[in-house]
């Protein structure tokens, strides 16, 4: 596993305590897991995602991510309807390890209340929680 200063925490996304990130993209937001989360999990071998059209509350489980050592639940950082899922992860789950904030995105959500973004952390605050 890497040291915290080797990990990448971009400033253009917001962070949840449960290690998901959210990026605003026009009318919707994209969600994935952070560099820290993918590094802790190790080689990711399978990502289970919800169905497009599902509506989920904030904090509700939207899927699971399976690595060679563990399976972890994924939680909605923001309430809303699933408008797209990254189905390319089915054949290439390693994208989550390689580019967690890019090709490794997981779901696209039409947020019920976009102002919920403000409840999430910026990169400095998130890094602060990791440092404990």
């Amino acid at each position, binding site marked *: 596993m890497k040291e915290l200063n080797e990990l990448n925490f971009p400033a253009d996304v917001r962070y949840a305590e449960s290690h998901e990130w959210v990026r605003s993209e026009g009318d919707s937001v994209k969600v994935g897991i952070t560099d820290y989360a993918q590094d802790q999990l190790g080689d990711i071998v*399978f990502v289970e995602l919800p169905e497009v059209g599902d509506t989920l509350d904030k904090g509700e489980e939207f899927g699971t991510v*399976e690595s*060679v050592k*563990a399976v972890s*639940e994924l939680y909605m950082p923001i309430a809303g309807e699933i408008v797209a899922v990254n189905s390319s992860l089915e054949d290439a789950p390693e994208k989550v390890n390689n580019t967690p904030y890019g090709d490794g995105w997981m779901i696209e959500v039409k947020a019920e209340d976009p102002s919920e973004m403000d409840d999430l952390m910026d990169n400095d605050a998130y890094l602060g929680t990791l440092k404990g």
Partner: protein
Amino acid sequence: MRYLPHTPEDVAAMLKAVEIDSLEGLFAHIPKDCRRKDALKIPQPLTEWELNDHIDTLAGSMAVSPQYKVFMGAGSYEHYIPSAVSFLLSRSEFVTAYTPYQPELSQGTLQAIYEYQTLATRLLGMEVANASQYDGASSLAEAMLMAIRVSRQKTVAVSRAVHPSYRRVLETYFEPTDLNIRELPYLSDGTTDLSSIEDMGDLGAVALQSPNFLGCIENIEALKQKLQNKKALLVVCFSEPLAYGLYKNPGQCGADIACGEGQSLGIPRSFGGPALGMFASKMKYVRNMPGRLVGQTTDLDGKRGHVLTLATREQHIRREKATSNICTNHSLCALAAAMYMAALGGSGFKELARLNYDKSEYLKTALVNAGFKLPFSRATFNEFVIEFPAGFKKTYQRLLKKKIVAGLPLAGFYPELKNHYLLCVTETMTREDMDTLVKEVSS
């Protein structure tokens, strides 16, 4: 061998460490009315030969083959077990009920289980099979839980013609949960009535057994049709997998999950156990499958090796979110089944299935010709139901004295089936055995 691990000295040392004077003091906080007052009624110790005598007497009090002619199957079947199976199984390398906990060190065991899984998928026509469950009943219950995980529904439907004991285990699994079981009645031809499925709302699974408990072959393809475009998974259960040497297997009928009992495949009946829970599914559901799974891979040098795979589903990693809380299996029984299937081979398996069918048809026809009623018209494999005249109980008892067990009385399981008996004929019955039975029940 000592069965009580602690010597009086051990006990004294431990009591001293916790500063209590006597063993009685250790239990002082347990309320008086929760304590047993009288002594345990345990008989005095026996010598080895006395104990053997005692066990022989107990065994002699049961009506078992070959001393008795047992025309009873109902989930446990008398089949000839090739000597090769018994011999190979007794090898010390294999003699354990468990998959190894440091698996990669036990390549032989893993390979043997892998071979079992492969043979199980071929027999059942499915894409992936696990390393086994406890028995047919736990396989069915786990199959229903798996279907619920896949479909995300809360209600399942089960045919009343599924083995009554399997259904009871399923009820036990579901009882403390918010999951529901709906029952599908059986029709006058001995198959399941599927007409009420549409009215049951969103189901997570529909389970049929084929051949069912009444011996009848279910119309699984009709159910497959009904479940098209529905969330419900098609679960096909079985208690006599030998039938798939003659009839279509679960995979050919479109099953999503196949589950059942593998005792028929080289495992003695042994007073009801140990058994073999067979479990197989479509590959797309593999991550929701319960139990252990052996996979094949190559090592760094390109050599073939075997591993326990997809272990992240299991309870030692996934804890309360595991796909099952039973990841133990019946490895030794699974190996017996693998050896049995390999010993018979594909053509031998089919021949044996045909022999079971032919013999059972012989007895069925003879009983009908002797004037007894065949209540269910549907095709059967090696078991069928006969309705005997009222008062047959006396005849049954008379036959028992002649060391013949004339089937299983069904009234205890199906109150409406008074005087109905489930009869089973395997390859172990001779024509003389069957002729004697017909003669005796007719006289």
